[in-house]
């Protein structure tokens, strides 16, 4: 079984004077159906590592493999394509487009991918939102939804193109405990039942404890795994 995402000595340095090290020498594999958490104090480089894994940022050292393919040197359009097809992001702040309704937000990645017809796109978006108990609120704008609801819309959008990897950056960071539990349970379910790789950046040790693998970081370096 090949790793969905594999980092080989991955590093990122900002070319400032003096150079700022964000991530150094990270090596690990992430398997389908696993829940991986990246934990560490703020500023330790865990979000930077997530952006590297999600092809939002380019590494300055090392290699990154997605589905066994080296994607380190790919151009912007090819990287955008991989993000579109293989990855789904969930951020701390919901990051929905404010002018679009919940349904339109979820339809967006599918319409960009263009594999499904309009009716099928709408149907899939409805069913994703229904699975997350948002069936009643599909036509609301993000401003008309609660924080927990918005975060679930964001998860539905991340799932739109049936990605292999869900990348979550402090997904529960701005939610109350009830909603946190719910979002977390959903993420676990995605890994366990739908065999997706879930990578979750957090500073909440209880989330880390529930993960299959926990990558602990300090000052840009991976200090412990397991």
């Amino acid at each position, binding site marked *: 079984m090949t790793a969905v995402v594999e980092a080989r000595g991955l590093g990122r340095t900002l070319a400032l004077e003096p150079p700022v090290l964000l991530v150094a020498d990270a090596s690990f594999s992430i398997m389908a159906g696993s829940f991986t958490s990246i934990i560490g104090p703020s500023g330790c480089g865990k*979000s930077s590592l997530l*952006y590297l894994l999600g092809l939002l940022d380019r590494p300055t050292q090392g290699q990154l493999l997605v589905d066994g393919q080296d994607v380190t040197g790919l151009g912007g359009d090819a990287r955008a394509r991989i993000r*579109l097809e293989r990855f789904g992001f969930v951020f701390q702040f919901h*990051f929905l487009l404010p002018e*679009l309704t919940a349904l339109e937000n979820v339809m967006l990645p599918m319409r960009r*991918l*263009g594999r499904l017809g309009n009716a099928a796109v709408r149907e899939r978006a409805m069913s994703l939102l229904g699975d997350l108990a948002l069936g009643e609120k599909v036509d609301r704008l993000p401003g008309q939804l609660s924080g927990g609801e918005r975060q679930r819309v964001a998860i539905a959008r991340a799932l739109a193109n049936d990605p292999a990897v869900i990348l979550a950056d402090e997904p529960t960071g701005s939610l109350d405990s009830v909603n946190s539990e719910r979002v977390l349970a959903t993420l676990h379910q995605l890994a366990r039942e739908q065999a997706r790789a879930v990578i979750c950046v957090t500073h909440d040790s209880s989330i880390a404890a529930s993960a299959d693998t926990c990558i602990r970081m300090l000052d840009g370096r991976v200090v412990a795994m397991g």
Partner: protein
Amino acid sequence: MSGRLGLLAGLAAKQVAMRRRQTLVAVSGVAVGVGFFLAVSAMMIGSQADFIRTLIDAAPHIIISDELRSPPPQPGAVAYTGGAIAIRHQKARTEARGLKDWQEILRAVDEVPGAIGSPSLTGGLTLRLGGREEAIALIGVEPDIESKVSTVEDNLRVGRLRDLQTVPGGLIVGEDLAQRMGLQVGDVVGATTAGGARTLRIVGLFKKGRGQLSSASGYVLLREAQSVLGRPFVVNRIGVKLVDPYQSQEVAGRLEKRFGYKAESWQERSADFLSLLVTRNVIMYSVVSAILLVASFGIYTVVSTSVADKVRDIAILRSIGFSEGDLQLVFVIEGVALALIGVVLGWMLGYGLMAILGSLRFPIAGEDQTLPLDRSARQYAVAAAASLLSAVVAAWLPARKASRVDPVDILRSAA
């Protein structure tokens, strides 16, 4: 691909709908630009067309006269070209004036499809009534042909050119001249030439204010002129009218080459006016393109603030998997959409302005005249094309910024 464009256009449309006030400013900028472009160019092109029409119709398209552009070469110089001795400052023999073989020329003119040639004889003559004397240019014509070739007929206030054929010794003069001499239609007037004296009868009058025609010309039958001027069978001018006046130069060149006589096209006669028109067009198009350019500044501003306001959304779209090109396109489409709305409104404005301009009446020389306007669809197309092109550039410049937004920077600062 069309699905992608549709999606990006949909996102752009949301942008446009979001910022109503700025959209309104940018759109009205384009609309005013397009509207005034249409109004100004309609007037300029319309008046130019009117002017050229006047130039073309003022006289026959081509005038062949019994003049030579340069004296004919000496037979000796032709026989011994490159000889050791060159002949200079020779005196040309005085030749009898008039177009030799004018029937031949006329036949050559008639061979050009649709062309009509009208022979005429011009000469000096003095009209005399009592103690008054007026020197005029006497022009002898064939009325049937001349009325087809020139606009002389249109300038008649009283009578018709054909009346020359029915009244023996008939003469048509201008109202100005008739007034000066106290003549009216039907009056008889004495005419003196180098060859003798006789009487002519006024059968028609040209309208006032037509320059030479109404103050110092007189039209008679060609036969009459030949007899009065003592030059039987002579013709010294052939006026040619063509179907397409823009072929005049070419046809004139051919005729001149074949017969040697000076054949002057209307373009040659009015070269100074035509170059004036070129200058006028350059001025107009620079002023009007400045208007359109300024209108595109509005689009630049809107798209530019749009990009600045939407960096967060740009980062979201990038994280979802939209490419740099996608985002650039969203904002270019936004700019083009603004321009499109502006163009449509501008068309309506321009149409309205033209309707107002077209309804204005100006009294010139006692007659109400309207502004000559060119309302062709071509101007609408030119205005739209120019606006859209400048909008693409104006939107593309700030849109590049959208594609350069680094999503990581935005995500980091939000976290």
